[in-house]
């Protein structure tokens, strides 16, 4: 996979993940072009399209479009399910995820994506394992918090 974009029906970019080195200018140009192309498509249309020398796979979930660019030999249907699995992960983590969750907790959305996909390839497809990793990290934070405040209280810092 070369990149993944999340954008709203109004064309606002909510998340961008690039797995190939591109300049900021190119990224903006690609984003603008793709958002326009995808938003112009009608609901019943096919989820795949050829774009430059890439294949675009996209799917709409409520107000958000999830859009992936894959290479010629990559599998479109499995990419569609990558999108779905990511949505499931977000949903499970946030509890019926909505666009606002992704706006306000964008960093979490990135962390979850990094656990699931790395370098554009599926790293861990088990929903349980991905969420376990994220929750462990959340716990780590709380653990780290507690001893420090205890230490502070007794004036050891």
């Amino acid at each position: 996979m070369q990149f993944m974009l999340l954008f709203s029906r109004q064309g606002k970019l909510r998340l961008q993940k690039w797995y190939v080195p591109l300049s900021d200018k190119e990224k903006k140009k690609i984003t603008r072009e793709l958002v326009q192309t995808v938003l112009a498509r009608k609901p019943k249309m096919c989820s795949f399209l050829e774009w430059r020398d890439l294949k675009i796979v996209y799917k709409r979930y409520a107000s958000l479009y999830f859009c992936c660019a894959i290479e010629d030999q990559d599998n479109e249907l499995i990419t569609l399910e990558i999108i779905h699995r990511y949505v499931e992960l977000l949903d499970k983590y946030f509890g019926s995820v909505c666009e606002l969750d992704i706006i306000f907790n964008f960093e979490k959305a990135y962390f979850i994506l990094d656990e699931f996909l790395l370098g554009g390839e599926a790293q861990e497809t088990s929903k349980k394992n991905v969420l376990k990793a994220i929750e462990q990290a959340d716990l780590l934070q709380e653990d780290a918090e507690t001893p420090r405040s205890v230490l502070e209280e007794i004036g050891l810092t």
Partner: protein
Amino acid sequence: MPAVSKGDGMRGLAVFISDIRNCKSKEAEIKRINKELANIRSKFKGDKALDGYSKKKYVCKLLFIFLLGHDIDFGHMEAVNLLSSNKYTEKQIGYLFISVLVNSNSELIRLINNAIKNDLSSRNPTFMCLALHCIANVGSREMAEAFASEIPRILVAGDTMDSVKQSAALCLLRLYKTSPDLVLMGEWTSRVVHLLNDQHMGVVTAAISLITCLSQKNPDEFKTCVSLAVSRLSRIVSSASTDLQDYTYYFVPAPWLSCKLLRLLQCYPPPEDGAVKGRLVECLETILNKAQEPPKSKKVQHSNAKNAILFEAISLIIHYDSEPNLLVRACNQLGQFLQHRETNLRYLALESMCTLASSEFSHEAVKTHIETVINALKTERDVSVRQRAADLLYAMCDRSNAKQIVAEMLSYLETADYSIREEMVLKVAILAEKYAVDYSWYVDTILNLIRIAGDYVSEEVWYRVIQIVINRDDVQGYAAKTVFEALQAPACHENMVKVGGYILGEFGNLIAGDPRSSPLVQFNLLHSKFHLCSVPTRALLLSAYIKFINLFPETKATIQEVLRCDSQIRNSDVELQQRAVEYLKLSSIASTDVLATVLEEMPPFPERESSILAKLKKKKGPGAVSVTELEDNKREGGELNGGGDRGPDTAAMAASNASTPSPSADLLGIRSAAPIGAAPANAGSLLVDVFSEAGPAAPSAAVNDDGFLRDLEQPTETSDSLLVEGSGDSDSAPPSEDPAPPLSEADELLNNWPKLNVQTKPVEPLVEGGAQIQQVLNIECLTDFSDAPLLNIKFRYGGALQNLTLKLPVTINKFFQPTEMTSHDFFQRWKQLSQPQQEAQKIFKANHSMDTEVLKAKLLGLGTALLDNVDPNPENYVCAGVIQTKGQQVGCLLRLEPNAQAQMYRLTLRCSKDSVSRRLCELLAEQF
């Protein structure tokens, strides 16, 4: 604001995001952002040391601002500080910032790499994963240099946690993609391959992506993965839908891993070991069988995952192309999908069938679906699906169904989306040519194409129909008759006029016996279109007219009258005017014999690959392997390379030109092949003689973009053609391995040379070993320049990018046009150019012979006119010329005063532009 805020909330961040969302206008948003940036800047600069939490919060805000599309130029240092925090979320935000906003600041990279190194050696798996994610996200060369040797160790170490192994595998993959030279698997190869056997499905899923990429580059070293992959696949395929627990996705066992395994197998030929092969065939059959079973769930996820595996299996079957039974089964399965209610499946089935159509085992099976595919072309509501249907029709076309398919495609063209018309036109043209049994059908088809979609018929297409008509006597009469009829239409496309003009000019005599298409009727028909056409078409028509004079002497008076009228002979377009003048003179001066020689019928073209096919390949091609570009050159002082190639010997020029295709024509592959019959040098000098007798009428260039007249070609004054030969040693370069920069990028680079307009033709993506390719550069001078342009040739050879930089022998004097003038005129202008900056002078010692003839040759080679009897001192030389640039004409006067005793020269230049005086003076001083 939503209530969700797991882990640790950052209240300040949430408030800021709310503020931004509440902004009513773009201006308000920018104002709010600037306020926040100022705030963060002051916090970072303040005396009070920030605690980790605040630092994290501000870095996170900066990240948010950046992701909104604003530039961020600070905060990197604070983010790097976060990396060394021992609190997970602070570290995590630091890494996220670095991953999104990489900075090539070397000082920073060192610090980042240091932090990564610490985390990698921390033995804390969560920290290790964060560090690996960062490397995989950034993937820069510096990181590859620092970590490429460390990561394989982590990947195969026995005590590494599974989650770390997964990250390490994909991290290594990313580094391998950016810097393959730095990732050396060597000793690790076998242990990496054995990760396919790992207990943990997640490890296998991650590792297989790495193994697939490595196998593509080094198939032999990784060969052992084939049998491992087959047995892994077999275990998954035969497992029950619940065996794999959380790796089962909507009742489909491990769909991602299955697809990746099938993809890995496509890097290799079918397994040689009979048992392995048998097992694999069994797997593929099971996958095909499962497609027929009733679905275990109504959810689209279930069918998508199942069909993803099916399509990947079909790809493997097509890749092997050796199992007729499986190929036919695959084709039948796809045939079912062609009528499926899911648009996605119809799309993929059409796409996949395209590749099946090229296999000899399944071509016939694919053909049985022709009606369904034609129906899809007519009824699909989504243009991308229709496009796939058109592709498939093209792929399944052969002699038996060509007429039906071409007819369907033609009728589709009338309503086709604009975005795909050009490609459709090319495809129709190719099919019509390839499967033409009788060429009258071919001619009809192409003329129909022009009628239906004239705007999308590129030059390649109409040139090609002319090539074919010229090469086949049996179709010439029919072609003349058909174009004559087509031109009767009240509104016909300009491309039709071009084809009509060319064909009637060559073969109008074949239909002239019929009084309804007598020579004059033909001429009047063509001429009735003349005024509606663009300049290039008019130029072509003028050439058709002179051919008419030869074919039908009875039209001579009428045509001469047309040529003589003011709108032709005084046309403001130089090209048209020149043709009118030259053709008029030619028709009145030359004898019938000479006329018949010059205007003889075009000789047949050598058989070659269709230029249309080449164009289609280019349209669809995988990006070029060799890319030519011009770059700015800062070096001063190019060599003056103006010797013989610009001399006065026009006959020699015409002769040499015959072997060097002129720039405008070579793209089309027509003109370069034209001069075959008569000896070109003779014909060229013959014409030059005619013109020089004719007096002042333009003696120099007769350039025909259409290649209609033979042996008349000379370069235009504002262009230079140049032959660049690519070195052909690339025999070991495999065609598709190295992704080259896309062509569009190269095009942009070409325009980096702002003072010259350089046109090149696209280059084939691959140069075979020992082969040579020609690149013709067409250069127009936009404004005067001093640095010679550089030709930068990039290509891949043996996997590595090669870069050759050649200086082009293009100097400002190449754009000279000589100007004859009298002594009086010369000195009058000399005095007009009297401002000090307009003059450039040099006094220098002679480096070469001061022989008069040599000096004269050099000065003529410069491109100016050498004026006799102008300077009172006969020892001196004076020259005059005009430099033609796009923007302006720069008049130049030159005086060279040799002093034989002192072996010295004084060179003076006066030009209407001071930079030109200086540049010419520098250039010339080196020559004497």
